[in-house]
């Protein structure tokens, strides 16, 4: 603590591309607020003192209404408000537009920890390492209650909702260590659901990647490999082969395709669609097939679903070769323990002591 208590720091670090734009808007509104407040307060004081009882001022014919003045006091705030609205809405649309070239990181919120998983399979608890200058897109889902991923230095926040993927993008611009907070009350240890965001320069990032994340001795399976593991364990390939067959459609190249359902409706096969198709397959059936797929709603964790989807995504890359499914199955067969994809990361020494204790509880 020490001297830190008396540190006066009016502005949190600006560590993302959006932060400076955000602060520009913030301080513009602040200036308007101060000007308006001073104007009104001084006006009140001026009139109150000028017209306090007993002063000798002209009090004849006090005005009871004046439509022109009313129009003015409605018009000026309205125009200013609309100006701010336009500015703000524009920036909001920008910040909610997910960059195409973003590095994708998956985030699972649960009581009371953040779990992150990188595309290359590195898993982190309550810590997130990202390279500087690279747009990062968090694809988030909650296992239990609603959380809010809040990165104050990035001026970024979005809710993490159960049953639905939400997204949050930011571009870190300054290396350093920043806060990850939960801004939505989520139960007893809400205030301990904090973590660190490490923004690293290219050299550090390379080293960190090389080590497979600084917490792991062995190089972990990447997302696709872990997904292949799940694929094999659950026997997905028994029905979903490289080509459409009477039992099941092929999943090769499915991501992003528009699928026609038995009822004639169409759906774009995005991440949410695939999650639903894995967890509650009978909800929507692709035209031409029957409702035969088992329900994996309770047997697969959110992490496993994410990995499986990444694996399915990888199938689309390989231009639909028939062998790919079998091949992928055999790649993962070498270290066939399915606990490797468990969210709790038991084998790792993730997080500092503070976070680990909260995780074990």
């Amino acid at each position, binding site marked *: 603590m020490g001297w830190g208590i008396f540190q006066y720091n009016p502005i949190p670090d600006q560590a993302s591309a959006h932060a400076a734009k955000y602060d520009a808007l913030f301080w513009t*509104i602040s200036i308007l607020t101060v000007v308006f407040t001073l104007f009104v307060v001084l006006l009140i004081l001026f*009139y*109150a003192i000028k*017209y306090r009882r*007993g002063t000798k001022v002209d*009090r004849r014919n006090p005005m009871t209404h004046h439509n022109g003045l009313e129009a003015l006091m409605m018009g000026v705030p309205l125009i200013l*408000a609309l100006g701010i609205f336009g500015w703000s809405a524009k920036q909001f649309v920008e910040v909610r537009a997910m960059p195409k070239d973003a590095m994708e990181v998956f985030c699972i919120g649960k009581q009371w920890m953040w779990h992150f998983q990188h595309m290359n399979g590195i898993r982190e608890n309550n810590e997130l390492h990202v390279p500087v200058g690279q747009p990062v897109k968090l694809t988030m889902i909650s296992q*239990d209650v609603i959380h809010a991923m809040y990165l104050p230095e990035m001026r970024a926040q979005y809710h993490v909702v159960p049953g639905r993927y939400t997204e949050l993008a930011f571009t870190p611009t300054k290396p350093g260590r920043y806060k990850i*907070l939960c801004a939505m009350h989520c139960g*007893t240890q809400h205030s301990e659901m904090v973590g660190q965001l490490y923004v690293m320069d290219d050299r550090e990032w390379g080293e960190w990647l090389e080590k497979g994340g600084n917490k792991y001795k062995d190089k972990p399976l990447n997302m696709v490999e872990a997904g292949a593991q799940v694929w094999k364990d659950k026997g997905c390939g028994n029905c979903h082969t490289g080509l459409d067959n009477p039992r099941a459609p092929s999943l090769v190249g499915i991501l992003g395709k528009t699928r026609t359902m038995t009822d004639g409706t169409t759906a774009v096969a995005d991440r949410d669609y695939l999650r639903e198709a894995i967890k509650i397959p009978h909800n929507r059936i692709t035209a031409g097939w029957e409702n035969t797929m088992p329900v994996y709603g309770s047997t697969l964790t959110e992490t496993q679903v994410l990995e499986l989807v990444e694996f399915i995504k990888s199938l689309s890359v390989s231009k639909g070769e028939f062998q790919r499914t079998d091949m992928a199955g055999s790649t993962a067969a070498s270290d066939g323990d399915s606990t490797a994809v468990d969210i709790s990361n038991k084998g790792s020494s993730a997080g500092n002591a503070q976070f680990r204790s909260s995780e074990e509880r």
Partner: protein
Amino acid sequence: MSATVVGQSSAKPSEPKNYLNADHTLKSWLLSVDHKRIGVMYLIAVTFFFFIGSIAAAMIRYELTSPKGILLSSEVYNKTFSAHGILMVFQFLVVVVPAVLGNFLIPIMIGARDMAYPRLNLLSLYMFITGGFLILASFVLGGVDAGWTFYVPLSTISETQISLCLVGIFITGFSSIFTAVNFIGTIHKMRAPGMTWYRLPLFIWSHYATAIVVILGTPVVAITLFLVVVERGFGFGIFSPELGGDPVLFQHLFWFYSHPAVYIMILPAFGIISEIISCFSRRPIFGYRFVAYSSLSIAFLGFLVWGHHMFLSSQSVLQGIIFSLISFILAVPSAVKVFNWTLTMVKGSVHFSTPMLYALGFMGLFVIGGLTGLYLASVDTDVHLTGTYFIVAHFHYVMVGGTILAYLGGIHFWWPKMFGRTYSEFWGRLSAMIIFIGFNLTFFPQFMVGYLGMPRRYHYYYFAPEWQFYHLLSTAGSTVLGFGFLLPALYLTYSLFKGKKAGPNPWNAKGLEWEYTSSPPITENFTQPILVTDSVYDYNPAEDSKMYEVDEEATVEDMNK
């Protein structure tokens, strides 16, 4: 207000009997259908709930002086802030002005003998108390840890006494619906002859707008909370994500009421301020119709902005932007009110008495509270600020700086009418200033710490010990504020027994309640039927000021009294 007495006086010429001493038995109080007695009983009840809510607030502030907490476990801390929020919102802010001052004054101000449905009024008092005690029981039996917003699925999986608490809130909700039904019936149908809509005091206009909001909004939140109860109690799954239900739908339905609820809290306060400013500037309110219609338009627009609580809760971007736009437009009628109040002082004769000090304080704080609302109405700035102490500071500026200051102003204004005694002006002015200073000291630092990123409802902030500075300031301020709230409780109670007799119109104010009733009023309010012939607020500032010009020394003496 000018009005003439018509017909022969049916009661005996004024006798010292009034509503307070009409009957002395306990039963005559507890089963009274007199709107004034019900108002007084509400006063006692809300003060009780406010006291408990304040203790919870004090515990929160004390706990936050250290980054690692001092006394409470996280579990107890969560229960404490939930208790604070639930009691203050549902048992205090939503009801305080309408139930105490509205109940007491509305029939008198419009020249009626009582509310339209006196027995319903009594029923709603007892529903309010029942609801309140169920809520308190839920705290005693284990507490509630989901915050006052009860977001699902947290509130459906929590193992605390949420069901009992929600049942209490449900009952309180219907209590405020019945009060609102009563207000609507009374204001529509019970006005004295000649009391046209544009002769109504603005206090009535704002209560009418409030009542409309209550009957349209409260049932929605009642059913929503009821659904949480059935989800907890029977396993029904209406918001459950596992069944395909949408937890965000709960937020939609919740804020459909709970944003308008903010206007339920603040609109009656606007009414009080209009009355006080007009009386102590000794002149009619500037732009009467604009102030009246701004109440209605706030009530109307207030229903279309609930989505600004949900910009980040995976609501569609398009809808978020539309809600943001309407929220910005909503700033306009509020600005109209503030400017009209300010201009009311022009060519007036301003008295700095206790209620006026509260009203001026209200205006200053409401301007800040309202303008900081712009940060949150604007979609982009909301991204960083929502869910932080910035929000906490903002709504306390509106709710405490707005509603509570106006309520205290109103209580001080109508206290002589309610109880026939005056209080010490010195202590009154002193407490108004202490509250103003203490309030700003408490909540202004929270804007700053919120901008720095301190999430609300956090128990610890050991990861950022530099925030302690702001929390220390805030806690120090809250001590001052608490002391400021304690003072009126003491000297007002003292005045009940030892205060000077007030006389029917101590402020020399206009309005039926001042000019045609005794202090305290008799049970039937008026001794004769009333016929209103002219508009409200016919003050004469020039003449009023002259009275003080002539004898300036006496004025100084009077002010120092």
